[in-house]
Every structure is written in C-alpha cells, then in structure tokens.
C-alpha cells in the first residue's frame, strides 16, 4: 500500500509541475484533469470515499469541462500560452510554398 501511495504522490507532484510548464493551454487542462483523478484515488486510499466521489465528479469532470468551454470561447483551444497559433502557421507556410 505504501509503495502505491508513494507512486501516486510522486505522480501528483509531477502533474502539478507539468501544468505550469506545458506550453499549450489544452495540455495544461488535460494534466489538471489527471491531477484530479489521481487525487480521487488518493482520497480512496485515505479511506474517505465521500471525498473521492466528489473529487472525481467535480474536479475531473465539471471543472475541466468548464475550462474547455472557456478556452473555446476565447478562441485559444489550440494556442500556446503566448497566444500564438503555431500549427496553423506552419500549414499556411506549406500551402504558400506549394
């Protein structure tokens, strides 16, 4: 049990660091989602299933859905944090070369 706990806690730390270091906003939201899922498993191991259910439903479900909608609304679903849209630009360059 302790080994599983250590693995989960280290995953938690890795997720928390990766959220702030990932370039794309969409990736940040997805990592945040996985953070909540790991957290809900940890609540389960800490013998508080009430919190585990709530964490899985609210943290991993609804919060990230709201984040997706917000990203959609501000037109930065596929942009990185600086607001540039890299993939599309490359495509345009390819088209102009052709």
């Amino acid at each position, binding site marked *: 049990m302790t080994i599983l706990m250590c693995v989960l806690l280290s995953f938690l730390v890795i997720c928390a660091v990766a959220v702030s270091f990932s370039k794309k906003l969409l990736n940040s939201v997805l990592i945040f989602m996985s953070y909540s899922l790991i957290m809900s498993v940890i609540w389960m191991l800490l013998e508080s299933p*009430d919190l*585990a*259910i*709530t964490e899985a439903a609210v943290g991993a*479900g*609804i919060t990230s*859905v*709201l984040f997706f909608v917000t990203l*959609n609304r501000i037109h930065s679903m596929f942009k990185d944090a600086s*607001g540039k849209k890299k993939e599309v630009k490359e495509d345009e360059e390819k088209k102009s070369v052709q």
Partner: protein
Amino acid sequence: MKKRNLFSSLLDWVWESRSDLYENMTIRDDDEEVNVITKAEHKEDIVKVKEKVFDAADRGSFRKWRFLYKILAVVFAVFFSAVLLITVGQLPKIGDINNPANNEVEKRYIEKGLEETGATNIVAGMILDYRAFDTLGESHVLFVAAIAVTILLRLDKSERDPEDTKITETITEAEEEDKIFEPHHDAILQKVAMLLVPIIILFGIYVILNGHLSPGGGFSGGAIIGAGLILYLNAFGFEKTERFFNEKVYKTVIFSGLAFYALAKCYAFFCGANGLDSHISKGIPGHILSAGLILPLDIAVGCVVACTMYAFYAMFRKGGL
C-alpha cells in the same frame, strides 16, 4: 457648481433628487452625427490594441524591469515555499493522542452518531445533522457563484430594446459561434451518450438516495447528475434539453430547494434548542427511509447542485439557459 456641504449632497444622492453632474452636463442634439463604428473598424481597432499590448513587453522601459521581475519571482517562490515547509514540519504527529483533533467532539460523533442521527454513514450524519448550518452556507455559496456567472455572462434578448443592434448582434454572434463548435449529429457521441447518460444519471440518483447509508450525498450525487446532463447536452444540442430544462425550471428548483433546506433546518434547530420532540422519526438504521431529515435534505442539495452545474455550462456556452 454651487457649493453644498457633505450632508446635504449625501441626502440629495440618497433621495436621487439631484446629482453632482446635474449642472455640468450638456445634452447632445439629436441632429448631431454620432460616431458610428462599423464591425470591420471595430475589428481593426481590436487588432491595433492587441499589437500595442503585446509590443509593450519588448519596449525599453519594460525591458529594464524584466530582470528584476525574474529575480523577485524566484525570491518570493522560495520564501513562500520555505514558510509552508517550515509550517508543515511543525505540525503535530499523525495519530498522536494529544492532538487537537482528538477531542471529545470526535468521540461523540463516532460513538453516538448512529444513535443521534440514525445515519450509518457518519460523514452524512456530521454534514447534514450536526453541522447542517455549514452545508446550508455551502449551497448558498454555490448559488451566489451561479448568480455571479449569470451577471457576467448573460446575454438577454427579451428585456432589452429590440432596436439596440449592438446587443442583438452579440447574441447572434454568440449563437453562431456556438453552432460552429456544436457537433452536428455526431454518430459516435450520440450512441455513447444514449448508453451512458441514463447510467450516469441513475448512479447520481443512487448516490443521493443512499447518502445516509453509503459514501456519497447530496453534493457528489448532484455533481454526477449535472455531468450526465452536460454530456446529454453536448450530444443532442440545446433544442433537446430546452424541452425539460429552461430558466423557469432552474429558478423553481433552486429556490424551492434552498427554501426547503432552510425551513427544515430551522424546525430541527428550534426543536433541538428548546428540548422538544421533533416529530421526525429516526427510523431503523440501515433502511432507506431512516435518519430523519438527512434524506430529504440530501435530495434538496442534490437538485440544487445538479441544476447549478448544468446552468454553469449553459452560461459558459451561450450566455443563457
């Protein structure tokens, strides 16, 4: 402007008889040409503003401070993490008898919880019986958050002037944008939703109704039902959900849920404080109809939370229910 003392101007302001700007304002003639901005010009302005804003980071005056910002950021991060780590290091040991957590309250909850509340799930007994006042505050916090989201994101068509083109334009724009991203008859999503939505909503109802017997309760069950409704909305669009969920339903459910909670708890507190019999039987522990007020309170909280979650999503999507 005439000089008036503070009190009289305050009175004027309270009675709305005269504003401070009253004598300084000039009314514009109707014939005067108003500076009308077309949509294209508006977009050009936005582009110009964006260029200025993003350029500001590269200007010399800002470049000077950038180095300082970086150093200060590192210093603050190290300082605050050190404070937190030192605090964690000075926490009492887990499971120590002399911990402040091990007082008579906890013992009473564990030993007499089943007897006094009738709930086999001690957590539900604590949340909705001993500390029901906290839970009432929590559901009100959620309600206030929903109101704030409504104030920020709502685009109302009916109450505004129909000739006000600016608002109607933004509404149609929002709806068009929403339609672009809405999946049109996405076969995979619809089939999966047809299978999953009933199961999710059933599971949510189970979690709410068994809140006093097994893990779960009003908030988590309501969140699960809300997630199921959001999945249904994503698969089939607003046209299908508007058949059973509109603003009127939302208002009715939220207000009746919160009012029922407050009234029921008022009754329980009044009886408890004055040593009266509460006329609500505790029932046999373990049965579904037991634990007194906990089950109806769970249902009320669940309805409020489910509606609020769905309303959040609808507000974010198109600025209205």
